[in-house]
């Protein structure tokens, strides 16, 4: 095994039955290649089986395990211990749940509620373009797709929404906006007018203050702010 690191984790906890919040400190020795999800699992195994947190794919493809570590929203599954120590220059880490939805227990927030904002942006084709006859695919030049496919990598982890300085109440959020903007580019979507109504609606891009925090924190390294800017300028072709 490689070198062990002695970590101190200060985890924000919440008990929904007692309606009680507190910060609990855990000390643990772990290898540098472990992910933070592995570290929490080790805490469940060795110290506290009751500490609640969620994950799913554990390789940054599903966006379930977002938390705020030392002030930065990120996915626990892609934060390696050695990188965390390097990045934050400490072995003490504070772990808080995201604030984009109410906390259900400990680090678990009500993601289904947060998702309602994405649903409002209609993450699907509202009205599909006509398909070519005779069983062929629609021809789309790669140059056209290059302008927006990067935005389709979004996994709705809500790290951008967490970092966004615009209010969570009045802005659907960077990720929801991006889901809408993708379809404004997409030649397969015919309902452009309805898309523009979402984009420029009361909870649309006008609420964005251009802090670009979304791009800064995106675990998928998507330049979210770039797509929001294109949305503001209506540059879809």
């Amino acid at each position: 095994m490689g070198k062990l690191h002695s970590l101190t984790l200060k985890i924000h906890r919440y008990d929904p039955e007692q309606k009680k919040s507190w910060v609990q400190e855990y000390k643990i020795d772990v290898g540098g290649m472990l992910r933070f999800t592995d570290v929490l699992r080790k805490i469940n195994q060795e110290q506290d089986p009751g500490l609640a947190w969620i994950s799913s794919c554990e390789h940054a493809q599903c966006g379930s395990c977002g938390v705020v570590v030392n002030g930065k929203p990120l996915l626990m599954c892609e934060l390696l211990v050695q990188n965390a120590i390097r990045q934050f220059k400490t072995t003490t880490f504070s772990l808080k749940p995201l604030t984009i939805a109410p906390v259900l227990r400990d680090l678990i927030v009500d993601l289904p509620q947060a998702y309602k904002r994405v649903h409002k942006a209609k993450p699907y084709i509202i009205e599909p373009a006509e398909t070519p006859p005779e069983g062929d695919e629609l021809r789309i030049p790669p140059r056209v797709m290059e302008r927006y496919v990067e935005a389709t990598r979004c996994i709705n982890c809500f790290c951008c929404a967490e970092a966004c300085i615009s209010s969570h109440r009045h802005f659907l959020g960077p990720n929801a906006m991006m889901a809408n903007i993708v379809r404004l580019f997409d030649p397969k979507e015919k309902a452009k007018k309805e898309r523009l109504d979402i984009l420029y609606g009361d909870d649309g891009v006008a609420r964005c203050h251009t802090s670009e925090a979304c791009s800064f924190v995106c675990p998928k390294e998507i330049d979210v702010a770039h797509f929001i800017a294109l949305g503001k300028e209506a540059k879809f072709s």
Partner: protein
Amino acid sequence: MNSRLRINAIRRCDALIIGAGGAGLRTAVDILAGKPDTTIIAVTKVSSPQKSHTTTAQGGFAAVNPKDPIDKPVYHMFDTWKGSDCSSDQNVIKKIVEAAWEQTLWLDNHGLHFTRNEEGRFSKRTFGGHTLEFGEGPSAFRAVFEADRTGKGIMDTVWGESLKRNVSFINQSIATELIFKGERCIGAIIFEEAKGEFTAVFAKATVISTGGLGQVYKITTNCRQNTGDGLALVLREGLPVMDLEAVQFHPTGIVGPGILASEALRGEGGFLLNKDMERFMERYAPKMKDLAPRDMVSRSIETEIREGRGVINSDFNLPHVWLDIRHLSDYVHDVKLPEVTGFFKKFAGIDPKKELCPVRPTVHYHMGGVPTNEFGEAQKSVDQIVPGLYAVGESASASFQGFNRLGTNSLLELFTMGKFVGDRVSEYLGDADEPGDLPKGAGEKSFALFSRYFESKGGENLWKIRETMRELMTEKVGVFRNEKDLNEAINQLIEFKEKSSHIKLSGSSLIMNQELVDRWELDNLLDVAIVIAHGAKDRKESRGAHTREDYPERKDEYNYHTLASMVEYGKVTLDKRPIDMSIFEEKSKDYKHFDFMARKY
């Protein structure tokens, strides 16, 4: 019995989908496309269907355009049959392969961003075992894809369509029991984690689409949720599961977490090296080399490691081989496969443009599942279905994959079978009676289970049992198996099950109690693990992904699917289901290629 445990709510719908991944939601969308006012409830364990395991599939979706001048659907059928080690059902192969192209057009039209070539048409790539001219020709470029996130494209598309068509979702919830009225399945008992409450969902038709069981093993590409829940659910109702011994090890898991490094890396020209920098696959599969089917490549890697030609990773103390993709162009690294090459950087600290990547076999997929016919109707025996109950996706086995699945055939199967199952459910809904009232005793199995969890006393540790079981399965029921190891595994699993009744939970809350769900998952894992071990023990031959060191050859006497049921823990009853040979038996033009054959690449 714990008095807090009761049915808190009753809901009714036409169709209940248990597991809202790609297969389940494809089924839902297909039903709604035909009849938009159908009421559908979809239950998912994750916080949004978008978080399902389907989203992690990388490489592609196999589909032959019937107008293709070079490739033909019949070649794809042949490759699937041969790849399965002559163990898949030919009626299912024919049906799925012939419908494949139309399904890709549906996906494209509904928003999936398939990668295009310069002409603006679908790009295609090749995967292991896909060939032209019945294996005589070169590799077939048959898989359409969305960069290296094809599964995400499929998930996003069917999830979006489900939202659009008003599927009602119950997130962060598990199905703990099926409800029956006589022989007919009329819904399920759902435990909603965030509320800490049980809901009885009545449905005219119930579809199981809970995905895989990868968490039975120590190193797996499967997400945390893949604990064989649907299979354990069916087993607990006394119904059979099929071919669970056929577990696929993907040859290239990233050393450490076991994350999948897509076969597309080899499809694009990457190759494997041992410690002596030898391209060892040339010895095992002289023709297909690194693009031989997954079971063969996994066995080859394990053999290299066993014979001392592996490399040890000091961080994880794991032996591995190398995957070399340094020579691939920047375009492949940065545009065609950015997620996968990014995994090596993020999770292994390696720059795959400059360094060799450490890989080893990792549990990826199970070919078996709830036995169904070609329409997805769940079977209780060879010739009897369970009315009202369906299964689809990785949790089902029709069987398209037989004993080994080819890359890109799983997205094809889950999506296309989803459509067929949806069609069948729609037909059934037309004539089906309303389920009526809650039958006496419904929910009691769930309450008994949860009461046991809360009332158990003792010093056993949930996680220790879970981790030890995963190590045991990897060691004794892994890539290579033998009688002695399998017997040991079975005995130890029985011990683990006994130990698990002495686990004391740390809290008694029902609300968002992750430990309670972990405890329930442990039961599911232990249940499917012992069925895998029994199936493997009984099959005294080697076939596809199931390899017995003590019986290295495939044998004709085992030309059947294993049906296994379990009344009491460890008491597994085995039965047989014949392999469908309808393409061969029809004696049409190319039928000779669909006989049993030796599998060489």
